[in-house]
């Protein structure tokens, strides 16, 4: 294949995936229709994730007014927000709950999109950008976890960064140094300290938001250009107009999500799910309390990491990332029935590791 042919094929590929001729109100709103069938609830998950993301932006901006990204003041500023600022505890708690709900929605969105074969041509790039958004969302979770600078935040980040460095032991030649360098770049100094906090803060409030705006913009435009995927093999019960019918239903789901979020934010402090020594301010001279672990959305990889050799997890994670990114091509000819079974199995694994990961760990490790 010569260069001219390659360019032509690339242009053809992009033209099919980004049909800019459809970029008008009539195609993207007026004529857009949404299939109605048994799995149609999956169409709401992407919008729900976006709703929680918008909540994160609003509450995150409010927290920015008072949060101090320094090791001496970070925890005190979080306490100040919680105890002294009017509605500060509510805003902070809503931010914490919305982050978890956003990640939960993104994961369900990924599984339902997979089960509905929503990655089929010409939606390959929509899927790939969705996987990138999942990665960015996890990045938000990982970087945001450190910011309150309490025991669990700092110690869990130390463990996470240490794991990155250990990867070097499995890589050949010069590549063995790369994870250590990556860890040093992220950490910024000999141990987790001010440089790390500054970098995580920059990532959390500037770099990742810029990245997510770009990728999310492409993802949303792509969804609107191609319309909703068919979702099932059979003929849908009916088609409903995107505007106003589906949009209205979507807004209703957002309304219910807002109510649930408000009640959780007002009534159940997110921190109550941890044992209290974990959210004391980090004391570099103090003893490390028991129970240090990452946020719940990393349990699916954290507990296997505690039970199995690192190389197994490394190979597994690399394969998973590759399979996720290449899903539209790997599963091109797989029927929806099989995809649904794979999605259900993945969902069951995630639920079991999230809810019972610790029990499984104790079962094997005593």
């Amino acid at each position: 294949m010569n260069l001219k042919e390659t360019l032509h094929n690339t242009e053809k590929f992009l033209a099919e995936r980004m049909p800019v001729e459809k970029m008008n109100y009539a195609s993207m709103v007026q004529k857009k229709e949404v299939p109605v069938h048994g799995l149609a609830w999956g169409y709401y998950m992407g919008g729900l994730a976006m709703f929680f993301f918008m909540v994160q932006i609003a509450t995150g901006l409010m927290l920015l007014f008072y949060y101090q990204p320094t090791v001496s003041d970070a925890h005190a500023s979080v306490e100040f927000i919680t105890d002294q600022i009017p509605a500060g505890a509510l805003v902070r708690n809503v931010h914490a709950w919305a982050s978890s709900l956003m990640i939960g929605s993104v994961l369900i969105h990924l599984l339902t999109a997979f089960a509905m074969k929503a990655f089929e041509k010409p939606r390959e790039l929509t899927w790939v950008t969705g996987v990138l958004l999942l990665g960015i969302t996890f990045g938000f979770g990982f970087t945001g976890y450190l910011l309150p600078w309490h025991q669990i935040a700092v110690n869990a980040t130390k463990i996470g960064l240490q794991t990155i460095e250990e990867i070097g032991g499995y890589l050949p030649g010069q590549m063995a140094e790369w994870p250590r360098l990556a860890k040093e770049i992220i950490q910024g100094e000999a141990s987790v300290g001010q440089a790390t906090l500054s970098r995580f803060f920059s990532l959390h409030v500037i770099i990742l938001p810029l990245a997510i705006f770009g990728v999310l913009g492409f993802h949303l435009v792509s969804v609107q250009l191609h319309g909703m995927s068919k979702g099932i093999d059979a003929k849908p019960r009916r088609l409903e107009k995107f505007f106003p019918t589906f949009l209205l239903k979507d807004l209703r789901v957002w309304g219910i999500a807002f109510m649930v979020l408000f009640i959780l934010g007002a009534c159940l402090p997110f921190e109550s799910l941890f044992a209290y020594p974990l959210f004391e301010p980090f004391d570099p001279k103090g003893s490390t309390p028991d129970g240090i672990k990452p946020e719940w959305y990393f349990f699916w990889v954290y507990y296997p990491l505690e039970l199995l050799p690192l190389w197994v997890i490394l190979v597994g994670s690399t394969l998973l990332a590759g399979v996720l990114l290449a899903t539209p091509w790997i599963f091109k000819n797989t029927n929806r029935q099989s995809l649904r079974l794979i999605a259900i199995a993945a969902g069951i694994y995630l639920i079991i590791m999230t809810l019972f990961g610790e029990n499984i760990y104790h079962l094997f490790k005593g």
Partner: protein
Amino acid sequence: MRTNPFITGFTALAALAFGGTAHAYPEFQKYVSQKSGRTVNCAMCHMHSDGPEGAAPGQIGHLTMGEQAELGRARAAFEPHANVKSPILNAFGNHIINSLGKKQFLELRVTPSELANKLPKDSDLDGDGITDVDEYLTGTHPLIKSDGLPWLLFKANLAANLGQIVLMLAATVLGLWGLHHLLHGFDVATRLQDNDEESG
């Protein structure tokens, strides 16, 4: 309240004999950890999570002369209601000493479960809706408002914020109802316009 002068004298003597030693009383921490199944450290009652010994803020080696004098007064508060404020104890630790007195507290070391029965039942130092006694028994922090058994906290906060929650629910439902009619109106108007264009 009458006190036994012999016991008081003996306890005071013991306190003097061990005056230079910090007492963290791990019996209570052990009991709470076992009963609740939660991780508990010295910060439940002490200023510092590693207990009173050391030179960090909240520990004996970090005290000023004035604070040392206050510590001495707190250590000698064998009877209840002495209104002391030990600088190595947090508000809950001082609440225990002021409610029971040091003598009764030391006696409870052999039966740490009894501490819950001896403390005032209605005290809630952090105002989170869960009494200090319940927080002690469930291994949650009596001075951190956001710490408590999730279900108990949820119930307490729901009752405390019911008015705002009802108003918010009403506002959201009314907002969605209004939005529904607005969008429905747009839809009808668009159809009418389309029909006019087709017939015209």
